[in-house]
């Protein structure tokens, strides 16, 4: 079996407001290997539609730069297009959190 046909199973923790769009805090996603953070975002939009897109992408179609994807404990700041190419592996726990510090 080629590498491309293997499946990458991921647990994705959705922080607000993404959990509102999905109706739950944690979702399971299966992607075809090799997979990236960008693929995770695409899968979320494909599954949950316009509201998920509105929170993740701006009007120009780029990811809202305040999102950080944690792959395990490693933060990936999604303010650079190349960050979307960060690989994710089978069994990884992904967290998507909006950088909303300032309280």
């Amino acid at each position, binding site marked *: 079996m080629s590498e491309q046909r293997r499946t990458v199973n991921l647990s994705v923790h959705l922080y607000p407001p993404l959990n509102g769009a999905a109706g739950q805090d944690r979702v399971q996603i299966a992607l075809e290997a090799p997979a990236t953070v960008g693929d995770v975002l695409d899968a979320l939009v494909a599954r949950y539609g316009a509201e998920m897109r509105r929170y993740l992408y701006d009007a120009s179609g780029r990811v809202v730069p*305040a999102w950080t994807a944690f792959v395990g404990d490693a933060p990936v*700041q999604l303010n*650079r297009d190349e960050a979307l190419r960060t690989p994710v592996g089978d069994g990884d726990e992904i*967290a998507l959190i*909006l950088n909303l510090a300032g309280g």
Partner: protein
Amino acid sequence: MAKKNSYAGKILRVDLSTGAITTQELGPEYTDLFLGGRGIASKILYDEVPPEVEPFDPANRLIFSPGALIGTGVPAASRTTVAARSPLTNMHGDGHSGASWGAELKRAGYDVLIFQGKAERPVYLYIDNDTVEIRDASHLRGQFTSAVHSWARTTFGADVCTVSIGPAGENLVRLAGVYHNGADKGVSARCGLGAVMGSKNLKAIVTRGTGDIGVADIAALKAAFKDYLDTIAVDPYVPPATKYGTCRFMGHRVKFGIHGAENWRYGAYHWETLDPEIFRSDYQVKAGACLACPVRCRRDYRVRTGPYAGVTAKLEWETIARSMTCGVTNPEAVIAWSNQCNHYGLDTEGTGDTIAFAMECFENGILTEKETEGLRLEFGNEAAWLELTRRIALRQGELANILAEGTKRAAAKIGRGSERFAMHVKGGEMTAGDPRGMPVRAVSYATSTRGSDHLRSNPYIEEIMRPEEALQWFGSEEAADIKHGVRGKGKMLKFSEDFVTIGDILGLCKFAYYRSATFPYLYRKGVHLATRFYNACTGRNLSEEEMLMAGERAFNVEKAYNTRCGATRADDVIPRRFFEEPLLGGGPSGGAVVDLEKFDAILDEYYEDRRWDPDTGLPTRAGLERLGLNAIADDLEARGKLPVSDCGKVE
């Protein structure tokens, strides 16, 4: 007839020593350059309270200055500045509240209210439009903030608004705040301003205003209002704020590992019982809003069962954070503590950090049960935490009396090595998240003009900015790198300080205007729309650049005030712990320290961009004159407070 430019046009001045009550015109010397709110308050404080006047001296001023746009219908224009020389930092002090009292003062016909002198006995000020009287408040002595507000509404009608202090302010506790409309509406918490009010024997201000706050161009206001709503409708920042209030910040602290728990030692901590969803589902009784705010992040909570059953409190994220600083993670105890602080009139941030300091002293044997009078002051001991809070408010017992002075003074008094546990900047206790996981925060806490403060700037811009935007605005893509960036960070910090100061000048809430998920949204709200709102309400025609310069000007006035009080670069520093002790608890920031070399590099760039002298940290004549602050430059020069070499350039 009301003016049609959002200003009432008058300053109300009350001399509590002589009983004299006077009004003066709010002239262009204030409105042209300083606009309102924090801008005008800072200028009055500089002009009227020289460094020879100590915080509890009757000659200190207590200045109430509503933001320029309060009461106009501009969304989230709700903030009022209270300012005085701070008894906590001995420097410029101010606090801000979002309750409706400021709008009531403007409707009564006054843009600014200044107190000076000291009454012989407890008094309150009664304002009913043109009727202004100093009245006896002996019967209110020792009353909670909530009781004072209830008394005022029972006595004078449900339409009056109040400002008051609780027992803590009366007892000159340097951690006391000024409460607006009782215990649960809003508080000007920082800098110990409640103690300044107490030092003047001023228990409360009861206010009724029925006048109109005119607006110059209602069509322009409506157009800007629509654009504001359109902007927040697409900003992902807003839905979590509306759903969870400020409790939403928990997720950010968890994932970045920057809690600062147990007196700023642990970055990762057992936070799960304080999950925002738990507060929402188990304790929330009211989701509300400050004056005219469509973001709606105010939250009231009630404990339903158990030892704290029936206790209610308005609760903000910082109160939860400072509970963790004391090792407390029981949400019901957190609600009870917030209730207690709000009623006694304490600042939860300063009080939490001060108790955490004492807890670490206890852990290390510097304080024993003899000094604590039987309290086992261990991290997480919520009963001891609540009891010590009460004692601090009442200055009950020797230790509480010492802690009522705030962390810095308490450490100096206790000695025996306790100074290394005292977490403060310029005497103001720490706030927000641990800076070891996010370097630019470290510098932002250091440069704040009122002691450590996360609301004095918006270093969080680094968290929402694309590299190309950082290059365009701050000269380096590095400025958009949270963990590793250095170049451009100083410029970013300077911009963000000027930027958020606009909000305090106009009375705009930081959470409604000065936080966002993209830099374009942020700038649009905080500068573009803020300027349009100001011009629509006042009939003026400020440019966005001039609005940013107004923020810069107010910040420089405060810097000059602190300089006049003796502050230098040596005061723009954070506690040694952050440089020397790795963050505990593991997690994303486990083991991190603030890199001193990077800290200094960011600070150097910051001073240069501010046109301040990098060696001394002093403002320069050229920098001050560029902002029209010539008289302040003259004053500093006369006092020998300008640097020998002038690095500023007039453009």
